[in-house]
């Protein structure tokens, strides 16, 4: 009783959808409360037996679900009930709700098959048919498609255009869900291509466009029909779809392109619609790019688009240009000033497109200038675009193992410069490239160390966490190639500066390890120097021996290189001694001494810095800086700190001792520590090389080793331990194929001539200001963070980085296409076999194998049927006999024969081609494995029974269809349009 009264009340006072919307509009804050109240009402109302109340409730629910994302799956059964209502207005609500909320997993789907069938076959109300079609196009499952295929098939030839076009559009979903439907419906779908009604043609072309884009090969036989529409149609929508179809087909069948290119150009020239014109352009640049005239015309049109004020056309113009770029770079170069102009457009999408094009223009002749311009431009850009610029510079330059980079010194310093850009977030990539280059290109190591030092030494950089990865690479490089460093002590100071406590532990560990390496190098140099002084060996020899140790086994050779380089140096710094011969210099200590005195104000050369005081100072510094870290909670840091400190402890005593006996007998006292140092130095000077990606695979797995055991438990135990990234570099040493020439010492001496960079003074200044923090324990955990930003864009403003300059510059460098070759030869870049990126990932096959199979089968089925029924008896028997013979022969030889046949075909005159072709096709058909053939014939017969309708254009179809039979065997396809 109570329930009936409430339902009557509901019916009488039910809120309509309009009330609900009005109510919602009034709620400014309590919207969710209002909606949950409304949902409560709906839950009650929807159970009502009154169809009006029920459908009204469902309508409200659909509204809330569609626009406010409330779940309505619970109402699925009510939806079915409303769908089956006899009143159209209710039914409509029900169908709408179903298409909104039903998915493949909705259980009640099984209940609606009959309802849908009833509505689809409703002879009186085409709107109900339309509702059912519309709903099916959204919710149809495999089962529904299978069960309703006969009804849909009937509707495909409905006399009511209104219904037929929707049925056509629905077929797309049916094919996708239930490929077997192709056997039934495909032929009728194709017939609709011939329809005189433009709406039907428009719908069916839309369907074929989608089908073709998924699996172009299967629809190649329909090319003649498509071509006719392309030429005849006046409807721009249809033409656009047609162009899309041909863009796909032409790629498969090059001969088709000769046919298509003319009408496409004609449309491009004639049409007033920008959309069609653009589609023509896109078709030409993407699929007809070998037709020069067409491409030229397209580029003219692209230029029109580029110069248009409408940002949409601009964007599309750039887009089309980037499709042309790989094959016709001239088109981009022709429009370069426009492209560069849009680099400063206010629309980020347009900027991105033009950046892509600028990068496409990069070649090894202009890479330096373009990168310079772009990096300057990045300084002024907003963070997002700045990173896009940097990212594309990095990826372009590193492409194919730095293919376009000739001057690695330049590139490395560019990397250093990029790291200092304020918004730079490309840390990972720069880190990888720095390490990669250091291992691959040995000539660039001195410059790398210099760049790394500049980065390490700048305390301000330590506050930018985007740079940490780069700093870790810099630290690693400085440690690994410390022999190229101008001043190793400075490196130790930089690596241990107080602000390094801002670094994450893993990177800090790399810092400490690098400091260890540098220290070993210093000590080793110190000892060598002492030895040589003691035994009155020339310093240069000892040191060059040291420097050469790693690079070249034949130290004596290097020494001879080194000597002339020193004399050069003297000429610059000390004209007084310039007339001295190099022999004198390298032999006499006195010569060196004068140089050292003359150079006190200039950067110290490696000869005079390894003094006893300096070494002891460094040892103290390290002990002080790292002492507090012995309590660190990070294993990596702890381990490395302990290593370093213990080592110092080990040798310190002896080194101090040795001072006392310095002038006397040092050999015996120092033997032990020098041995240790020598040992360590040898260990560290082991060359690290790049490792092939496939190296791991070549290592055989030892027996009894279970690699695939589940180690999840282990992960739980040591989950928070992060491995330092340096581990990945220190794997195996490999040998370079080629030694280095005389360039190495040259570079070194050149480096020594350079004046100190501003970073040194920065560090000094910092030291002055914050001297308190230096060499103290790390109790001051919070280090003042008030450094000026490392790279204030304002500072760079004086640089010529305006867009106009950009245009000018780029223009210049693009004009001078052929620049004289660089004086410096490109250094060797070590390549490994594993480095070659696989040419391209496996091309994804057609998405719907079953669908394409079904389509091909139908086209073939047609053919089988028509050819047997249409050809005259004698022809038939002869072809059959022929087929039997062929079956016996060796298939491989036949294949060759057929291939040859097909090639010949091309050269024959058209009249003979036709007849020949037919027999050719028949041979092929018989050649295909018997089982498949039987199946096909069966299908053909089945279909013959089903539809007595005979297709009018079988003749053309037959000709076109034949080769499809063998598509999988040979790529030979006849020219459909001849």
């Amino acid at each position: 009783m109570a329930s009936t009264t409430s339902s009557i009340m509901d019916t009488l006072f039910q809120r309509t959808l309009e009330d609900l919307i009005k109510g919602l509009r009034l709620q400014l804050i309590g919207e969710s409360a209002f909606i949950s109240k409304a949902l409560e009402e709906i839950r009650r109302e929807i159970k009502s037996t009154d169809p009006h109340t029920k459908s009204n409730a469902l309508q409200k629910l659909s509204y809330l679900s569609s626009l406010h994302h409330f779940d309505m799956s619970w109402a699925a059964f009510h939806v079915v009930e409303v769908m089956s209502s006899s009143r159209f207005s209710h039914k409509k609500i029900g169908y709408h709700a179903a298409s909104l909320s039903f998915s493949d997993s909705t259980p009640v789907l099984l209940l609606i098959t009959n309802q849908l069938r009833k509505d689809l076959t409703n002879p009186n109300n085409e709107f109900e048919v339309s509702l059912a079609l519309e709903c099916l196009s959204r919710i149809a499952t495999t089962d529904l498609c299978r069960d309703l295929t006969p009804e849909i098939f009937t509707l495909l030839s409905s006399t009511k255009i209104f219904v037929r076009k929707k049925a056509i559009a629905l077929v797309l979903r049916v094919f996708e869900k239930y490929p077997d439907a192709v056997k039934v419906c495909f032929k009728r779908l194709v017939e609709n291509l011939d329809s005189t009604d433009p709406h039907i043609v428009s719908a069916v072309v839309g369907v074929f466009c989608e089908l073709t884009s998924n699996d172009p090969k299967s629809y190649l036989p329909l090319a003649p029909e498509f071509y006719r529409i392309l030429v005849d149609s006046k409807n721009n929508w249809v033409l656009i779809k047609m162009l899309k179809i041909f863009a796909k087909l032409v790629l498969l069948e090059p001969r088709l392109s000769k046919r298509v290119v003319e009408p496409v150009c004609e449309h491009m020239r004639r049409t007033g619609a920008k959309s069609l014109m653009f589609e023509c352009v896109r078709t030409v640049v993407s699929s007809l790019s070998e037709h020069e005239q067409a491409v030229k015309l397209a580029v003219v049109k692209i230029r029109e688009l580029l110069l248009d004020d409408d940002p949409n056309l601009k964007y599309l113009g750039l887009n089309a240009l980037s499709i042309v770029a790989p094959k016709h770079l001239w088109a981009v170069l022709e429009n370069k000033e426009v492209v560069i102009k849009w680099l400063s457009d206010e629309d980020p999408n347009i900027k991105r497109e033009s950046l892509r094009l600028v990068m496409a223009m990069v070649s090894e002749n202009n890479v330096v200038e373009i990168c310079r311009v772009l990096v300057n431009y990045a300084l002024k850009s907003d963070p997002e675009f700045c990173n896009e610029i940097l990212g594309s510079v990095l990826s372009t330059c590193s492409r194919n193992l730095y293919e376009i980079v000739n001057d690695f010194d330049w590139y490395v310093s560019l990397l250093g410069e990029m790291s200092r850009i304020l918004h730079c977030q490309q840390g990972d990539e720069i880190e990888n490239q720095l390490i990669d280059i250091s291992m691959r290109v040995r000539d660039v190591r001195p410059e790398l160390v210099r760049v790394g030092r500049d980065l390490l030494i700048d305390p301000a950089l330590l506050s930018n966490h985007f740079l940490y990865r780069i700093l870790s690479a810099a630290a690693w490089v400085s440690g690994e190639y410390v022999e190229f460093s101008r001043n190793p002590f400075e490196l130790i100071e930089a690596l241990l500066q107080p602000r390094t406590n801002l670094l994450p532990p893993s990177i800090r560990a790399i810092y400490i390890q690098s400091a260890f390496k540098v220290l070993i190098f210093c000590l080793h140099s110190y000892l060598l120097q002492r030895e040589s002084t003691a035994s009155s060996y020339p310093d240069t020899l000892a040191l060059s021996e040291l420097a050469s140790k790693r690079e070249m086994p034949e130290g004596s050779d290097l020494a001879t290189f080194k000597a002339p380089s020193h004399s050069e140096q003297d000429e610059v710094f000390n004209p007084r001694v310039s007339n001295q011969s190099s022999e004198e210099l390298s032999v006499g200590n006195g010569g060196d001494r004068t140089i050292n005195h003359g150079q006190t104000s200039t950067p110290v050369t490696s000869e005079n810095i390894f003094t006893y005081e300096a070494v002891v100072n460094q040892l103290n510094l390290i002990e002080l800086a790292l002492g507090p870290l012995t309590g660190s909670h990070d294993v990596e840091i702890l381990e490395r700190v302990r290593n370093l400190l213990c080592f110092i402890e080990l040798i310190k005593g002896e080194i101090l001792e040795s001072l006392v006996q310095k002038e006397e007998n040092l050999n015996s006292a120092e033997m032990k520590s020098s041995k240790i140092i020598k040992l360590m130095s040898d260990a560290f000077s082991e060359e690290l090389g790049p490792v092939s990606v496939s190296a791991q695979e070549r290592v055989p797995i030892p027996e009894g080793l279970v690699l695939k055991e589940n180690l999840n438990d282990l992960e739980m135990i040591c989950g928070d331990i992060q491995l330092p990234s340096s581990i990945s570099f220190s794997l195996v040493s490999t040998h370079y194929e080629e030694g280095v020439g005389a360039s190495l010492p040259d570079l070194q001496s050149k480096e020594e001539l350079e004046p100190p960079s501003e970073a040194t003074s920065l560090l000094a200044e910092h030291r002055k200001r914050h001297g308190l923090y230096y060499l103290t324990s790390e109790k001051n955990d919070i280090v003042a963070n008030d450094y000026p930003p490392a790279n204030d864009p304002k500072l760079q403003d004086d640089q010529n980085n305006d867009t106009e300059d950009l245009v000018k510059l780029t223009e210049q460098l693009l004009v001078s296409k052929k620049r004289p070759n660089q004086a410096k030869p490109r250094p060797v870049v070590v390549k490994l076999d594993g480095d070659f990126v696989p040419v391209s990932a496996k091309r994804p096959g057609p998405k719907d194998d079953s669908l394409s199979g079904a389509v091909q089968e139908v086209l073939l089925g047609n053919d089988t049927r028509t050819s047997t029924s249409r050809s005259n008896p004698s022809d038939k028997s002869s072809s059959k006999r022929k087929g039997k013979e062929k079956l016996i022969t060796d298939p491989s030889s036949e294949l060759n024969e057929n291939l040859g046949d097909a090639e010949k075909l091309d050269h024959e005159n058209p009249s003979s081609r036709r007849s020949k072709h037919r027999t050719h096709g028949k041979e092929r058909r018989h050649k295909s494995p018997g089982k498949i053939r039987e199946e096909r014939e069966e299908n053909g017969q089945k279909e013959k029974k089903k539809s007595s309708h005979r297709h009018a254009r079988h003749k053309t179809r037959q000709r076109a269809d034949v080769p499809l039979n063998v598509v999988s065997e040979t790529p030979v396809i006849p020219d459909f349009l001849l």
Partner: protein
Amino acid sequence: MGIRFILMVNKQGQTRLAQYYEYLTLEERRALEGEIVRKCLARNEQQCSFVEHRNYKIVYRRYASLFFLVGVDNDENELAILEFIHLLVETMDCHFGNVCELDIMFHLEKAHFMLEEMVMNGCIVETSKTNILQPIQLMEKSS
């Protein structure tokens, strides 16, 4: 499938109409609409109407306070979709007479009905205004 979805969103980012041609769960729809609204509504009139999003494109156009956003496959013709949006607005204009946000809010069903006439299963099947409006006018007469 050509067109994947059609959204109408007002300046405040509230969805006024949503039509999807592929099944997405409610959460996916909510996330998608949020992302798109953030991306497109931030753009100004001088910027182009195409936005790349995930693995497809969004072509959008603003009419007064309402944004019409259409998600399409990557190889769809952007200009044609803009024309389609314009056609949709003209059709609504024709039916409602100077269409505004409120018309669509209160006559969501009709708006859906028009869309269903124009687009079926992601393909544009009808581009004639009279043909689109014919059934809806018939229905109004009969009720």
